[in-house]
């Protein structure tokens, strides 16, 4: 494919050429998300009609259907928020580590958040969701620093293999610790087990809204880091050469990602693979510019999680499959595909 456009036209305003394309892409993604949300509110053990949804949304819960709607709305809202958070967090982590396999789940960050929450419940008698939130974020942050430190020791820095292994090792250890904590405590085991697999089913409006400020901060930091991520993508030396303080850029961007996945994990439990899959798909749609990639990942993550939640509800009717299981079943083959498709570099 040889571009035949004359030079001046090929050069025509750099970022504008793809701008309208990307904007319509975002609009399309938004429309799909809206449709998914509508489906999510109407589909379930009992399917509801549009008029019942409207009635339910306006606060009425006289009929069973309307009551079902008022249960499904916070659930859908949570799936949207958590999905967007995980999508953006994964995208940022892939940018910060320059590692195609980076994902809050694979790097063990979600397990770290989970361990912190479980410790809080078991030893400090935590029960307030707001405390879950903070302990989840602290756990995610500590784990991220830990895994990245181990994975990047030595000369070649953080290669995909070392990071994935350090993350896996950490995740296995933390899961063992979680089991070690839960086993002697039959009283808390059941609740933690289903929280641990990842679910949006038990969402309440107040719990969902309680994570909004943290998510807002996380989204803001991540989006403001977009240009830094663009430079980091060129490698440490090049980014330095272009006047970026690499360490500062990495820290701020990572902080945004940690707020996002810590908060999402604290409410839904660890959900793997959303952060991995979504940015890769979005890269196919939006290219490599993080200023576009991040908003796309937010919409994509939200869409994926809502869709996974709907799927979990209809596949095994009248029972439900937790959303974390659905995303793993979709995400793992994707992970393998990436591993196969790429020349995994510098191992």
């Amino acid at each position, binding site marked *: 494919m040889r*571009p035949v456009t004359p030079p001046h036209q*090929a050069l025509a305003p750099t970022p504008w050429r793809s701008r309208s394309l990307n904007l319509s892409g975002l609009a399309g993604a938004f429309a799909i998300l809206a449709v998914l949300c509508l489906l999510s509110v109407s589909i379930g053990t009992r399917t509801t009609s549009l008029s019942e949804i409207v009635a339910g949304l306006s606060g009425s819960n006289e009929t069973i259907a309307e009551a079902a709607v008022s249960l499904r709305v916070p659930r859908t809202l949570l799936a949207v928020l958590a999905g967007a958070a995980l999508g953006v967090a994964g995208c940022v982590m892939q940018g910060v580590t320059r590692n195609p396999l980076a994902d809050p789940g694979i790097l063990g960050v979600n397990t770290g958040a989970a361990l912190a929450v479980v410790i809080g419940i078991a030893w400090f008698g935590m029960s307030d969701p707001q405390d879950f939130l903070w302990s989840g974020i602290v756990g995610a942050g500590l784990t991220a620093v830990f895994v990245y430190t181990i994975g990047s020791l030595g000369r070649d820095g953080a290669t995909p293999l070392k990071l994935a292994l350090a993350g896996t090792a950490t995740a296995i250890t933390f899961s063992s610790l979680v089991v070690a904590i839960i086993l002697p405590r039959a009283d808390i085991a059941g609740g933690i087990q289903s929280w641990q697999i990842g679910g949006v089913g038990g969402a309440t409006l107040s719990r969902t809204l309680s994570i909004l400020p943290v998510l807002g901060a996380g989204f803001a930091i991540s989006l403001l880091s977009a*240009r830094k991520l663009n*430079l980091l993508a060129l490698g440490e030396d090049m980014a*330095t050469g272009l*006047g970026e*303080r690499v360490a500062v850029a990495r820290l701020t961007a990572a902080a945004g990602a940690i707020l996002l996945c810590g908060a999402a994990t604290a409410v839904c439990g660890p959900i793997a693979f959303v952060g991995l899959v979504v940015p890769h798909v979005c890269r196919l749609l939006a*290219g*490599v510019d993080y200023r576009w990639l991040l908003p796309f990942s937010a919409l994509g993550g939200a869409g994926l999680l809502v869709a996974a939640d709907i799927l979990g509800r209809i596949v095994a009717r009248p029972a439900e499959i937790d959303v974390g299981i659905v995303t793993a079943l979709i995400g793992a083959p994707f992970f393998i595909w990436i591993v196969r498709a790429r020349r995994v570099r510098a191992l």
Partner: protein
Amino acid sequence: MAQGLTARALVAGYGDALVLDALDLDVPQGRITAIVGANACGKSTLLRALSRLLKPKHGHVLLDGKDIHKIAPRALAQKLGLLPQSPVAPEGITVLDLVGRGRSPHQGVFTRWTQRDDEAVAAALEATKTVDLANRAVDELSGGQRQRVWIAMALAQETDLLLLDEPTTFLDIRHQVEVLDLLHDLNAARGTTIVMVLHDLNLAARYCDHLIAMTAGRLHASGTSEAVLTEETVRQVFGIGSRIVSDPVSGRPMMVPIGRHRVDTTPAQNEAMEAMGQ
């Protein structure tokens, strides 16, 4: 106050190992300088220290008399450009996008892309003859094309100083010469000061105004090709006997190495062999 890029009593290294040993250096302004030397003599380390990728243990690297680690990174990046040895391009990025990223030192967090940025990118693409590649993905280009694109990006940065770490490695001979020609054009047209690490002694001697030969973390010799590229220096720096002849193409000095075999035993070479044996 010294102008341009200078190093004073520079000591630098990795971890506990010190690679550079109290090194002083003045980069001649508006010239092309090549750093040469045997493996592990500290060439790349020197380049990394000069481009503030490596923080000195002692001593300073100064730009117009000011310590480069005390200059704001963005301000420094407007004056000093850098091309690392094997830069990585994100998968699928287009040439235009990549070269455009060279403009980032000139942009703030909220400033928009301007007409000025467009002009700089266009000029960089034209200078490196990569206009036709503008909408291609970088990873589908050949090695020589890719190196031209990276140089275009450094050009878009519009700096007076450009440091390059082995810009010709992994290129075949035709593309090596092409890249060096391009750097020469740039130096002639914009007066950009260029410092690069080069492996090929003869290409360095041909293309550079100023040669720096290093051994064990110190400057062994520096000056014009004629002054630096002598049989004596080659033996001390690379540990091999050689003859220096005149490059029939450029008239600059050219080094012909002498090994243990395949040496015609003419009297002249015998002398060289004996000199090596001493």
